[in-house]
């Protein structure tokens, strides 16, 4: 099999792209979530929330560029089909990301009288980005066909992804702050968790119903046997996190990191389920990764680069999280 790169390269690149999407969703998920939670906090708390994501958000969004970039460079035909079908939500996503990205800087650099306005734009942009991502996920799951029932479903997933991000954001604040804000954040995260459970269930039910192929993949014997741990684990993570968030913060701030890991693992399980369902398709039921892949010689040269560079990226990202470990201060710019 390794003799012919055309056989394994598309799989490797689909995995890399999937990994980028997963990392993006978890990392930008928490900073978008913090943006969504802004209106629920007091003004001083807002500063602290922002400073908890300040050093990270830019690198977090770079994972989206990498994911879209991999789709673009490894599966160019699919890139055109998917982004063509999602033209309007993509434009709205971009407007959302633009607004929140610049509001980040403007809110502390513009005249103080505009700070509220930029805070609102930061919230609105974060929410818009989260909603459009959820909307696109919903349409994608149903095969990118724009019909009225599909739009209704996509609106549901939009709200649930936004709720899921709010859950991650809340969990991140629990991890990075303390005091009254930490307690509030635990409650926000719990609410977000409950709301996102609905979307999780909806997608899990809709994908096998929308596609006989996916139904076959999950419910055939003996696959169902070794697949059953996945939904069970996901359910356990939901329940465990729900109970845990009800008790946060614990004495001496123990386990402050646990809600975030729990929230991230829920996204991981959801991702694994989706990846299993849709493999080998990159455009559901229309185009497989093998049909859409670029030429092997081009994929290979990118793979060489990725193998060398990705560990470097991982290590200096880890360095950054280590440098900015501990609770976030209220003032973002510390020099």
């Amino acid at each position, binding site marked *: 099999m390794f003799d012919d790169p055309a056989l394994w390269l598309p799989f490797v690149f689909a995995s890399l792209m999937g990994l980028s999407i997963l990392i993006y969703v978890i990392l930008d998920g928490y900073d978008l979530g913090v943006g969504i939670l802004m209106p629920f906090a007091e003004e001083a708390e807002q500063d602290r929330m922002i400073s908890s994501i300040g050093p990270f958000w830019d690198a977090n969004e770079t994972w989206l560029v990498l994911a879209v970039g991999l789709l673009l460079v490894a599966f160019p035909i699919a890139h055109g089909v998917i982004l063509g079908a999602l033209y309007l939500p993509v434009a709205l996503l*971009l407007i959302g990301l633009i607004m929140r990205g610049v509001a980040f800087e403007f809110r502390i650099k513009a005249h103080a009288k505009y700070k509220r306005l930029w805070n609102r734009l930061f919230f609105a942009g974060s929410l818009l980005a989260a909603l459009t991502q959820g909307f696109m996920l919903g349409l994608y799951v149903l095969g990118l066909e724009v019909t009225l029932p599909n739009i209704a479903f996509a609106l549901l997933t939009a709200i649930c992804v936004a709720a899921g991000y709010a859950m991650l954001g809340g969990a991140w604040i629990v991890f990075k702050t303390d005091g009254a804000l930490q307690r509030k954040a635990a409650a926000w995260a719990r609410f977000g968790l409950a709301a996102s459970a609905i979307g999780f269930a909806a997608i899990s039910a809709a994908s096998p119903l929308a596609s006989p192929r996916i139904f076959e993949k999950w419910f055939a014997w003996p696959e169902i046997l070794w697949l059953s741990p996945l939904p069970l684990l996901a359910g356990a993570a939901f329940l465990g996190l729900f109970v845990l968030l009800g008790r946060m913060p614990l004495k001496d701030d123990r386990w402050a990191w646990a809600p975030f890991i729990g929230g991230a693992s829920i996204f991981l399980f959801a991702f694994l389920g989706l990846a299993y369902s849709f493999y080998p398709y990159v455009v559901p039921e229309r185009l497989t990764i093998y049909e859409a892949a670029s030429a092997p010689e*081009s994929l290979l040269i990118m793979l060489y680069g990725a193998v060398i560079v990705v560990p470097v990226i991982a290590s200096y990202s880890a360095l950054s999280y280590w440098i900015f470990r501990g609770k976030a201060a209220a003032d973002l710019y510390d020099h």
Partner: protein
Amino acid sequence: MEPIVLARIQFAANISFHILFPTITIALGWVLLYFKLRYARSRDMAWMDAYRFWTKVFALSFAMGVVSGITMSFQFGTNWPGYMEKVGNVAGPLLAYEILTAFFLEAVFLGIMLFGFRRVPGWVHTLATCLVAGGTTLSAFWIIALNSWMQTPAGYEIRDGIVHATDWWAIVFNPSMPYRVTHMLLASGLTVSFLVAGLSAYRWLRGDRADGVRRALGTAVPLAAILIPIQIFVGDQHGLNTLEHQPAKIAAMEANWETGPNVPLILFAWPDEKNRTNHFEIAIPDGASLILRHSADGVVPGLNDFEGGHPPVAPLFWGFRVMVGMGVLMLIVSWWGTARLWRRKDASPWLARALVAMTFSGWIATLAGWYVTEIGRQPWLVTGVLKTADAASATPAPMILTTLLMYLATYAVLLVAYITVLFYLARIGAKPTGEPEEGAIQTTLGAAGAVTGGR
């Protein structure tokens, strides 16, 4: 309007807005490193003040560049699906290398540079500044390598109607690439010189004569004076390279219709593409032949040799003149300014006013130059390989128009906000960021200080 025209306007709007900010951050990163190193060596707080102030401008510009850059990564697919289908095998790896080697590097170390000053040792912070500057420059290298390949493709073959890479070295270092990269890096240097000089002169005019302001002014004006003659030389070389590889573009830039010797350099004219002639022409005899062939009877290509396949004439003719005009202004102002600063050790009100007026001159020249080279590639998207019309998407016109208006409205608001905030920052000077709200929120928790080991 036709969908393809709208798609082109939309793409042009996005990329024009985007390029404004990398043009600043590429060179400003190096200027910041210079300020930081001067401070590290002398422990003179004036350099630190300059560093602090310009870090704020950098952070803001960088954020604008990042978010508009994310837009670009989607626009390739939404607006030009045929582009990646046809040349994805070449474009893909170049874009991938830009993301892998540059984007993450600059994003992560920017976080450390902006927020880690008290958390890491001084040399790590300086290294972070250096890596951010290196990242922005590397990013420019990759994307311009791709752009140059689209202008002067090399190192490929076409199999089954699709471009396949045969020689990566030839692809990256394609014939126009060294010229275009150098030209753009210098453009960034000049843009930043005039931005730094302009805002510093603005502060100077308002009576802010702090040492940090003088240092910034004393760095930026001579830097511009050094860069501009180099840029004029490189630009000339770039033009000769274009003459060799894209003669139709040169013909349109000079609005020269007939191929022949003794072609005049047209200073002013109204190119009339319909009747294939110029009106109201004011020209220097033999000028174009002298510049392009270095001899009065040198043969310069004419547009009539490329009838039906050359780029639109008026935008190239005018775009080129705007760029060159800006260059001449830059030369005059920077040399005048350097002479003044050298002799009197201080600016004068008129010099300061001129510098303020020139604050964004780099943007104008850069945009005009990019319009010349990009419109000059038409009707091709990739010269000789793929026509722009063949790469367009099937997205209906109303959809493109709606999103175009959305983008334009967003960009207009952001551009106004950006420029307003730059001058606002200049007015409040080098005071700490967010000064008005300071004091209310100094609630740094004990844990934060205790946990941070760095220093």
